[in-house]
């Protein structure tokens, strides 16, 4: 049966986000993040939950970890044919799961640890292996019916599905993983009744995005990134944010601080009051990246291997709390979700509208 996706059905939403980063790269067990997101149970409705974990595959740190979600065995075999054509596969296995009564009818979930085959990157005309992998993800998601690569970074992985996030955590046995950065999402779906690919986080290469809110500018943003070869197949508005970060930072080299300012730009009245140099920069940013402006209510937590970013919409329509305790930085929709695992934080505050909170690792972690 064809699952319902964006454009076919729509359900009003809430959603919860949560994230933990140890800036020294110390790895922590997945139970903490599961507890944090479970604390905001009421913000989800059981139709989506997911996690991204960084630093979980140290033994395959140099390989791309492709997490593939397949609706049929036929789809998996077809996706595998593409994978075998383009990559040296160092390990292929089902993603370990356990039976959880609340999680029903899961798709076939496999992971592949791969490196591009010799010469394939050049043959494809890709700029580098990251570009090659990004194109590959787009191609499989676009061309193989029922198969979706939902995670394609190195030494990281996305675990998501239909269910409450705490059930999803048990289903994927996250207590068996350790990561220096975890993000989590509890979904009250906006765009679909909930399908496995539509759950958060959304990932491409290193990037993963969890989102509390709705992207009103999705049509504009989507058509913008499509010009640069991105194919939006997961059919939920948040997907476009991962691609915008990939386009503006990885491909175009814009510093992360400016990427955030392109996505949640200062208002013109603020730009007009800036000193001339800054005004010129921010005006140009808006002139060139106007179609990348994200409009609508949002709090995003965008993660990549070197850190995480918290970003609110510019008129602060959604909640996002930042907290720090020692080497731990946390962000979540609600303060309770942070205190539950941190105790009393050293620093806690709300993230302002349009204000990017960019946290970077201070060392100790391989790329």
């Amino acid at each position, binding site marked *: 049966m064809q699952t319902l996706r964006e*454009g*076919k*059905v*729509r359900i*009003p*939403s809430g959603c919860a986000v949560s994230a933990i980063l140890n800036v020294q790269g110390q790895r922590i067990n997945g139970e903490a993040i599961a507890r944090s997101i479970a604390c905001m149970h009421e913000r989800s409705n059981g139709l989506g939950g997911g996690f991204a974990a960084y630093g979980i595959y140290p033994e395959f740190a140099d390989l791309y970890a492709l997490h593939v979600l397949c609706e049929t065995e036929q789809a998996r075999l077809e996706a595998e044919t593409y994978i075998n054509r383009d990559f040296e596969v160092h390990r292929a296995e089902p993603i370990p799961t356990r039976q959880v009564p609340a999680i029903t009818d899961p798709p076939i979930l496999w992971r592949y640890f791969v490196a591009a085959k010799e010469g394939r990157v050049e043959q494809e005309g890709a700029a580098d292996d990251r570009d090659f992998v990004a194109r590959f993800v787009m191609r499989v998601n676009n061309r193989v019916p029922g198969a979706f690569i939902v995670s394609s970074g190195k030494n990281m992985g996305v675990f998501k599905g239909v269910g409450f996030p705490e059930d999803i955590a048990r289903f994927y046995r996250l207590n068996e993983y350790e990561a220096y950065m975890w993000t989590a999402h509890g979904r009250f779906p*906006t765009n679909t009744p909930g399908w496995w690919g539509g759950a958060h986080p959304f990932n491409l290469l290193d990037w993963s995005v969890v989102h509390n*809110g*709705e992207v*009103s*500018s*999705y*049509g*504009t943003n*989507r*058509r*913008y990134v*499509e*010009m*640069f070869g991105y194919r939006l197949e997961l059919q939920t508005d948040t997907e476009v944010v991962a691609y915008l970060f990939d386009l*503006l930072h990885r491909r*175009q*080299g*814009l*510093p992360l*601080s*400016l990427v955030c300012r392109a996505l949640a*730009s200062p*208002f*013109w*009245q603020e730009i007009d009051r800036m000193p001339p*140099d800054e005004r*010129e*920069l921010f005006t*140009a*940013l*808006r*002139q*060139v*990246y*106007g*179609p990348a*402006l994200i*409009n*609508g*209510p949002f709090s995003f937590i965008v993660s990549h291997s070197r850190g995480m970013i918290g970003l609110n919409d*510019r*008129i602060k*329509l959604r909640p996002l709390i930042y907290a720090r305790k020692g080497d731990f930085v946390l962000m979540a929709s609600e303060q309770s979700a942070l205190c539950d695992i941190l105790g009393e934080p050293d620093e806690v505050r709300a993230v302002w509208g349009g204000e990017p909170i960019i946290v970077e690792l201070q060392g100790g972690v391989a790329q």
Partner: protein
Amino acid sequence: MRSYTPPEYLVKIDHARCRRCGRCVKGCGFGVLSMASSIWARSAELFKESAEELAQVFARVSEYAADHVVADSRRCVYCHWCVAGCPEGAISVEPNPLAYKPNHHWEPHHLKNIWLQAETGGMVLTGSGNDKAYFNYFDHLLLDACQVTNPSIDPLREPMELRTYLGGRPDALTVREGPDGKIGLETSVGPQVQIDTPIIFSAMSFGAISLNAQKALARAAKACGTLMNTGEGGLHEDLYPYQDHIIVQVASGRFGVSADYLRRAAYLEIKIGQGAKPGIGGHLPGEKVTADVSATRMIPVGSDALSPAPHHDIYSIEDLAQLIYALKEATAYTKPVSVKIAAVHNVAAIASGIARAGADIITIDGFRGGTGAAPMVIRDHVGIPIELALAAVDERLRQEGIRNRVSLVAAGGFRHSGDVAKAIALGADAVAIGTAALVAMGCHVCQKCYTGNCSWGIATQRPELTTHLDPEEAGERLANLLRGWSLELKEILGALGLNAIESLRGNRLRLRAINLHEHEMSVLGVKAAGTQ
């Protein structure tokens, strides 16, 4: 030759209310109204060869004991200048119910035009754009609105940004970090023109419209932080103070084009085509080329100003590229260059070529676009609607990955801010309004611009008529219109949960079609109403 056409309208004077002030008589550009005494004289003149008819005339003269206003309904064009201006409200104009026998196939305009052509052997001219009942796609598109999950934004309480920049852009910005850690810009974005609302005024030349009308447009453009367009008539020196808000056109006739003219512009526009008459040139009759028009256009007084359909130095896209770069050279690459084309069947491919030829802005004029004069057969049967053209162009430029390199301006019959919002959602950066601006100044769309007799003082060069338009007051009306539409655009954005116009641009997901066929929805890139 005697005319077979009946009067289309009946002008009625309420003599009990009329105070015989004579304002209507002096002001009617079409000579419909006159004092009875002058009618007698004219009648006598007309019938002087017939003694019998003359006798009848004098018999009728006796009916007019006192001098009063009389109307020659045959001449009336339904412009309503006299009706709107009569201080006593003593004039009414009605369609003549007995003018034509109803017939669904042979409609009045068919009969009228046949009679007219049988009398003259010429082309039938018309003005102000297509008035036929063609399908209007804007009326079959509906905008989205936010409800619970994605809150609407209140424009009275939150900033709502309409500021738009027109110009060409690079795909990406390059920045560098200075020693102090500050990020500086390395890329030069190229010349950009800021407009505070995504609505500009369409090209209307001095010659086609009066200097007072152009002054009104310039005043409003400056007051609202937007742009007016000189059209192909040159730039009158009275407009120099508004030059930062003026687009100057380089059309096939090259009227008024000089280095100084180019330097004074906010941006330059090469006019290839016009929505009301794609593939057709322009013709300003010699009688409209007054001393002022002659000086501005740099042509002799009284000479016909013929602007051919083709530029005689542009017979290929390469030639167009040369002109684009010649204009950029002439202005030291400080101003964007636009190319204006009419909406035609393969407009998407043409626009792609124009973008690649170096244009910074592409203006597309749909078949509802207005004009001072067009052959009726062209106006009514050539070209395509702006909605389809715009959607096709935007999509094609995106498929080719070059949409972000150019700005798109859409024109051709925009009637209200809803049309504007829908055009932006279909992909326009801004829209240009012509007829709507004229209407704001008083035009009643009588479609007789080509006669030069506009009683409203807009589409005329007759000094006694141009004084009918006060540029200050007309400018205020235009500015009010733009403010009103801008406020409405902000409301629409707020309803859509957006606070910047950029987020509506090309956002076709926020449009839904009603009563459109699959293939039309496919061209427009929209889903049917009721689907999500």
